[in-house]
């Protein structure tokens, strides 16, 4: 799986589109919290959908699901891949070493 698209914020990512985290724009404790939850550069990620009022969004990263707000997701820049994300922990998500 190789990213091909340009940089877009995570909250603008098409639902279910597989993507790779490229960089985080935030700083301080908020940035570290996101990274501790697995949103580090290079992590494979996808947006599953949103909760009813449209915020927070639900993302898949590192085999688990997280709820995070648009505001924070906007600070996570990703590059999308051509294929769809396969839910759950799937080894095939990863590039062959």
């Amino acid at each position, binding site marked *: 799986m190789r990213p091909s698209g340009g940089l877009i914020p995570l909250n603008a990512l098409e639902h279910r589109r597989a993507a790779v985290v490229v960089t985080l724009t*935030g*700083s*301080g*404790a*908020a*940035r*570290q*919290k*996101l*990274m*501790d*939850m*697995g949103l*580090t*550069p*290079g*992590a494979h990620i996808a947006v*599953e*959908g949103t*909760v*009813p*009022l449209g*915020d*927070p969004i*639900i993302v898949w990263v*590192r*085999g*688990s*699901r*997280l*709820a*995070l*707000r648009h*505001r*924070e997701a906007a600070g996570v820049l990703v590059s999308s891949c051509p294929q769809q994300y*396969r*839910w*759950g*922990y*799937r*080894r*095939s998500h*990863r590039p062959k070493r």
Partner: protein
Amino acid sequence: MAFLISNAPPVAVLAGNPNCGKTALFNAITGSRQRVGNWPGVTVEKRQGTTTLESELVTIVDLPGTYTLGLGALDEKIAREFVVNEHPDVIINVVDATQLERNLYLTIQLLEMDIPMVVALNMFDEAKALDLQIDVDRLKKHLGIPVIPTVATKKQGIHELLFETARLITDAKRTYKHVGRIPDKNRIPVMKYAALEAEIGRLEREISLKAVRSSGSNAHLSLPHRWYAVKQLERNPNTLDIITKARYDRAAGIADSVIGQNLTADEITPSQAIDRLVLHPWLAYPIFLGIIWLMFHITFTFSQPIANSFAEFFAFIGAYVNNLLSSVGTPAVFNDFVVNGIIAGVGAVLEFAPPIFLLFMVITILEDVGYMARAASLSDRLMRAVGLHGGAFIPMILGFGCNVTGILAARGLDDPRDRLISIMVNPLISCAGRLPVYVLFAAAFFTEKRGLVVFSLYILGIFLAALVARIFSVLIKPDSASIFVMELPPYRLPRPGAVFIQTWERGREFLVKAGTVILTAVSVVWLLANLPLGTGPGDPNSYIGRFGTILAPAFRPAGFGDWKAVVALLSGIVAKELIIGTLGVLYGAGTVYGTAETGLIYAIREAFEPLSAYAFLVMSLVYIPCIATLVSIKRETNSWKWMAVSVVYTVLLGWILAVIVYQVGTFLVH
């Protein structure tokens, strides 16, 4: 290595992510041999127990569940500092086998501390069901430590896990005996940080040198010097980025290498299927409200018969003791103190044990199932409107049981400001202790609409909490952007044993309060109401009567300028549920129980009118949280200032609202 030097039993800690089944494993290991205390300085629960390994007693400490050992949230800090300062003899790292990658991120950080460690690869049955074929041997090789598959809820693998733990302890002892010192701490590092290695090496030498110079030995540095070097680099945001990424990449690499499965099937997971309903665009909020309604319904309906039998029991005991004492011939004053002071007072409090325990049980089940994380996400949008975030939802809900528990639950919030605001507004949530006050007055004055009156007070409390949260969030400037990131754990069936234990622990605080603070306070109130000798309850010349008489005029604008009402409010500071008991004593209605309750209803009908009764209820809701709540505000914020703020703002707010209710009401009636 505390036990090598002293003769204290060896200490094993359980460390792991939230939702990894750590508590279930703790219960499986220690059984009933456990107790709950607090971590020093904070009121975060510290679970500690013992077990016997090869006829040797071992202390087991359950660390708070964390994703990392970073410098962030309180839970992380507690977990990290315990390992650094107390230096446990063994770490049992509980890893959720279905979430290997995320869990290994913590495992790697624990490995860097270089303390003997064993991994409990928990929920192994679930991983099998998901067809994740985990190669345990390979995982063992990658980590360089024993890995034992376990299913804590079914007590599988516990024996093997404890066997490994015992072996690690014995090994440490043997090494100590042979080498005569604690095993060399500077072995081959588990993590290499490519670009940072030169800097780490430099810092490590610096730390070693400093350690030797300052004390002649490095004994006070309990962890490898490399660990301190890396910690130092974690303080710099740029290097912290590199370190975090390197650890996660390593975790991902290990997870990839040990998970054999390579499915390309396209189906959704069971939890996603459930969430299609639970987070459905149209159904989510009706379901949410339905669950909250059901929670209160179960709490207050099911607990009613139990609470009634409690009441009957205490009435019986009171009557029995009264007869017994009379026949022995003790002074009437003493009998009155025991029966109407202590037994009636404590009984009045214990009557709330059933609803409180039931509420905590339902909340625990909802947490166990995984619904609370969804509820937090669903309420985030609403909570944000008042300056809080979804995570603050759980403390609020717990506040309906007992504000103390609600305030303790706020520790789960990462951001100090979110935490402070949640703590400060929690007392405005109507706890179970206020309910009987509402119920009594509603029954006395609003027979037809009593349900509505009680409901209105609950809503008023929520509204005020929102309003005050909004005000605090404007006044207290954020020092960093607070963020909402919450894991949505897979749905799981609740485990009866764990639900029982957790419910008990949460409710325990309440029972302890009933047994200590309230017992003391009840006695003091009784004494003040009956002294100096010759006066009695209902006498304005008693000490409490004099005090009430001084304060009473202040409440005349609110319609209840009677000193007895004021004294009832004063004793309500001890615990809000005491308001009734005090009114009972002051109006000479005797015990509040059984048929005698009608006596109290008649008495308050004489003393209040509907409008002043409602003003009194509003005051009861808002003014000074009870002593136990104040104590927890002090402890959790670690500040007398915030405790004082909560006293002052609630008294002012309560008084203003009560006056508004009474004055506006009087104006409208005329």
